[in-house]
């Protein structure tokens, strides 16, 4: 590698990278982010969609500096390590759709794969149901890969293409900090809970840089076990889980239960199917939502398009009531709310699964992606 600590050369180093990411997540929770959300990519992209008024649910609107930090962290470390490479052209609209569906699935479950692990570390058994769905989705996507699925190769393209997303996010972050009232900001709910901007940005930068060096991918970690019996990437997830488990036990946030979990619901079928969509789509897209942010930071125009799919997917999920509601216990004034997706969300999840099967088992590899005898 060009610079910095090599975090990908052994399982121990990968686990160390995961532990650093876990510490960042724990610090952000301590500094004010929602406790078992910490640095959830789906939730935070959804909050950014709210801040930009692409969706108008008043409780989930805030321009999250962590997302900017993750992309910029990957961008900077990739430049320093001479791994920044500007590419595009691998089925961009299909990737947009995959990003869109990943977000819909994540918001039915209420969290991306990263938050799934954070929720598990806090004892949320609904996340275990989500993990089973996620693993089944990854398995289905891997089966599609084995059957020959490919989105085709990306190609080198003009350098500015790689700078657009990091630069745009940086400009938007500056605007969100420097102008009052331009972007929407929640006054209650998860969107109102946040660490100070500088802590969020620095946390995101570190998280993104480490994730880039480790090649962190939640879908890839399960896919590599299924496909090659390779446990490298799962070592990172193990590091994150252990650190957050220790944090949750020490701070008294560990609650082994299906109920009483913050921003979650116990509709098992929809937790399972929501994460099934995420796992399936992530394998077809070549990475989970976090990995897409990292690849976008290191120059992939295709991953940047996937990010746009995630962003617009979040807007649709809330504008058209596809996202789940959180369960809530009864109070003196209100009855208990079971949470979970409404009819729109349930239909959307089923539609996503059908579309994923069409994409996964209908697209054939291109001729260039084959082996041939060299002259």
């Amino acid at each position: 590698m060009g610079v910095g600590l090599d975090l990908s050369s052994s399982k121990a180093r990968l686990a160390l990278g995961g532990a650093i990411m876990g510490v960042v997540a724990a610090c952000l929770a301590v500094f004010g982010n929602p406790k078992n959300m910490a640095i959830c990519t789906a939730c935070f992209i959804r909050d950014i969609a709210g801040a930009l008024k692409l969706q108008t649910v008043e409780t989930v609107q805030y321009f999250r500096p962590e997302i900017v930090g993750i992309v910029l962290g990957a961008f900077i470390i990739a430049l320093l390590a001479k791994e920044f490479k500007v590419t595009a052209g691998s089925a961009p609209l299909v990737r947009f759709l995959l990003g869109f569906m990943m977000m819909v699935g994540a918001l039915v479950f209420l969290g991306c794969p990263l938050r799934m692990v954070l929720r598990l570390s806090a004892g949320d058994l609904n996340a275990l149901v989500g993990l089973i769905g996620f693993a089944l989705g990854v398995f289905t996507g891997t089966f599609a890969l084995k059957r020959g699925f490919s989105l085709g190769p990306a190609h080198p393209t003009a350098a500015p293409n790689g700078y657009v997303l990091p630069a745009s996010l940086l400009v938007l972050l500056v605007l969100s900090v420097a102008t009052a009232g331009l972007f929407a900001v929640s006054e209650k709910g998860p969107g109102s809970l946040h660490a100070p901007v500088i802590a969020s940005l620095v946390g995101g930068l570190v998280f993104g840089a480490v994730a880039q060096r480790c090649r962190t991918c939640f879908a890839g970690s399960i896919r590599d076990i299924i496909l090659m019996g390779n446990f490298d990437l799962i070592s990172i997830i193990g590091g994150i889980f252990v650190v957050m488990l220790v944090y949750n036990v020490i701070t008294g946030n560990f609650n082994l239960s299906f109920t009483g979990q913050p921003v979650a619901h116990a509709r098992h079928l929809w937790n399972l199917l929501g994460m099934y969509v995420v796992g399936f789509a992530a394998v077809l897209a070549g990475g989970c939502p976090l990995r897409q942010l990292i690849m976008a930071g290191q120059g992939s125009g295709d991953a940047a398009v996937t990010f746009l799919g995630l962003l617009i997917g979040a807007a649709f999920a809330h504008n058209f009531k596809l996202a789940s509601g959180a369960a809530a216990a009864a109070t003196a004034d209100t009855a208990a709310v079971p949470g979970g997706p409404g009819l729109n969300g349930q239909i959307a999840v089923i539609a996503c699964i059908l579309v994923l099967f069409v994409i996964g088992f209908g697209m054939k590899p291109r001729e260039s992606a084959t082996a041939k005898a060299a002259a």
Partner: protein
Amino acid sequence: MIEVDARGLSCPEPLMLVDKAWKAHPGETLRVLVSEVFVKTNVEKFAKSKGKKSTAAPTDDGFALTIE
């Protein structure tokens, strides 16, 4: 020598192509073209896990790995 063109492909397709080429042409030396550093690293680790020796050389648009 068998050439595997994995340039620009998403993970884990390059490794799957290498694996497929090994199975289709056992004992043959492979020349694997990749475009990203992390894909090069992944192919090298994959080759090592299979007991193969690999060497990499830079090309105009990435790297060429020789695996034997």
